[in-house]
């Protein structure tokens, strides 16, 4: 089976204030186009796992593969490039750069990747915003739009480099039910229409139930 994202025997310890085994021998994989959610109680290690998978946390044991490439042991700038090119992020809080316009926020990762001309990037960004139904907000300052709109901008930004996988850390945690549904529908649509893999950490049972697969965690282990 070809996994887009695979973790093999990942262990993680917190050393402060005392040694604590957070993740215990985690192994799993995500297929292309699969929409997976991770559930579990607070403190079970699901966010910690997500940050390891996202390559931002490098302090772990075990191996991590994205698109069959081993990422464990790469340098900071190399990992930054992997994140830039292959992973899209959506967080609970929107994390847009407030001084920049919506359009500029979406364009940033693509300009960093610098694979396309600025003109092409601009067109792509408008297309992503159109896809998410917020094209009309493109030229507003990011600090001037509503919470639901910000989350959609964040999704557009996650999509701009056509990544292999999108990761979300409670992407609906801060949204009302209408906007949550909206975000879910967007994710679902991306998964079906663009064959995008999604990995979402969530507390929201309704949200998780509608995904392709639920990974349930407790005390640092996958229980189902």
């Amino acid at each position, binding site marked *: 089976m070809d996994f887009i994202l695979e973790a093999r025997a990942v262990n993680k310890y917190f050393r402060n204030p005392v040694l604590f085994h957070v993740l215990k021998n985690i192994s799993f994989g995500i297929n292309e186009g699969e929409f997976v959610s991770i559930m579990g109680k607070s403190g079970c290690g699901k966010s910690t796992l997500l940050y390891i998978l996202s390559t931002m946390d490098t302090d772990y044991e075990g191996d991590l593969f994205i698109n069959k490439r081993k990422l464990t042991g790469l340098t900071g700038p190399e990992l930054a490039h992997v994140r830039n090119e292959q992973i899209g992020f959506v967080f609970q809080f929107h994390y847009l*750069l407030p*001084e920049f316009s919506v359009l*500029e926020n979406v364009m940033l990762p693509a300009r960093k990747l610098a694979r396309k001309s600025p003109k092409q990037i601009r067109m792509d960004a408008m297309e992503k915003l159109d896809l998410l139904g917020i094209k009309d907000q493109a030229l507003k300052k990011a600090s001037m739009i509503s919470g639901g709109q910000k989350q959609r901008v964040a999704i557009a930004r996650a999509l701009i480099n056509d990544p292999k996988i999108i990761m979300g850390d409670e992407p609906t945690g801060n949204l009302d039910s209408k906007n949550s549904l909206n975000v879910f529908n967007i994710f679902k649509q991306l998964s079906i229409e663009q064959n995008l893999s999604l990995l979402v950490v969530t507390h929201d049972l309704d949200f998780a139930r509608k995904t392709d697969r639920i990974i349930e965690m407790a005390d640092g282990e996958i229980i189902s």
Partner: protein
Amino acid sequence: MTRMSLIFDITRTHLLSRLKQSSIAALGVTFGIGTYIIMMSFMTGLNGLLDGLILNRTPHIHIYNEIKPSAQQPVDYYQAFQNSINVVHSIKPKKSQVRLHNALPLMAHLKKDTRVKGVTPQANARVFYLAGSNELNGIVNGINALEEVRLFNFGDYIIGGTPQDLIRNRNGILLGAGIAKKMSLKVGDRVQVSTATGGIFPLKIVGLYQSGLAEIDNVQSFVNLKTAQQLLGEGSNYISDLNVKLWDMENAVEMSKNISRQFKLTAIDIKTANAQFETGTSIRNIISYAVSITLLIVAGFGIYNILNMLIYEKMNDIAILKATGFSGTDVQLIFISQAVIIGILGGIIGLLLGYGVSVLISNTPFETEALPTIETFPVNFDPAFYVIGIVFAMLSTFLAGYLPSRKAKHIDPIEIIRGQ
């Protein structure tokens, strides 16, 4: 290239979105650099003027015959008393001639030396200035006016005429300003001069000499060398003093020693004559450097502070930039470039400010008795100050940006994202 333009875009947006803070940081640099330029230009200008007051008109080596008692008295040569202590009471100075022996060949010899910029001969005569029944004693210096102007800035101390007027008029005199005032004489009048030997010479006042030192202005006047020799009743080889100017003042001590040994004359070098002078100059320089550097460092701390706060404010931005694929170095560059832009802009405006105020100062009236030809404050527009200023501005702002930016580089995005 695209990477830098992207980083520059982010930098620009950061700077423009907090224009007030950015301009205050830049103003700090502007102020520091501006003050540095003003202080250095003005201080070194004044220093140059003050140094010039003494150094420019003082010969580097002054050669003359000093009236003094012989170091070895005849009794010292007598072999019978060689091992005894000889005490001679009431030693009188040896009678010797005032004129320099073989002065013209000596002058020619000195002029051949490559270290020498020029040599001027003088013949000094003690005289009385006569006006009606008044007699004032004084000294008349016979000079070669052209050489004095070239070597010792003589022209700077002449008012109401020029040294050239003296050359054109064989019976001309540049009268000391103090004498002129006492005797209520003015340029164009005649003054009678009587010499020690009794002759009376009428001379025409072609200008006044004002050194700023009342003691000198009250006694000293200048005439052509030939006129002075006539006053003394001597021939054209009568020369009482030689003033030597060197290309490099540092050679004065060694040369003066050689001259006095070789020709058995008294030769005083400028360093011995004006030892206290260099000390004052270097202390003034140290003070101005200390003050300007303090100002620049304070400006640097201002930038450091503002960037530090900016980085705390921008924690979320830094986290998201890192999460979406910007490396630590990219983030660091964003903040360093902000500091450097503030430094360059503030520095350039500071240079302009410094230049503007310097021009203003250099046009401010400044009148001093000491230098009759100076009308405004002296300012030194040395480009080196401007180069040092902008280099220091960039260096200090780079450092002020580098330290906080290192923190931004090492911020762990997970901590920020989880910490919410």
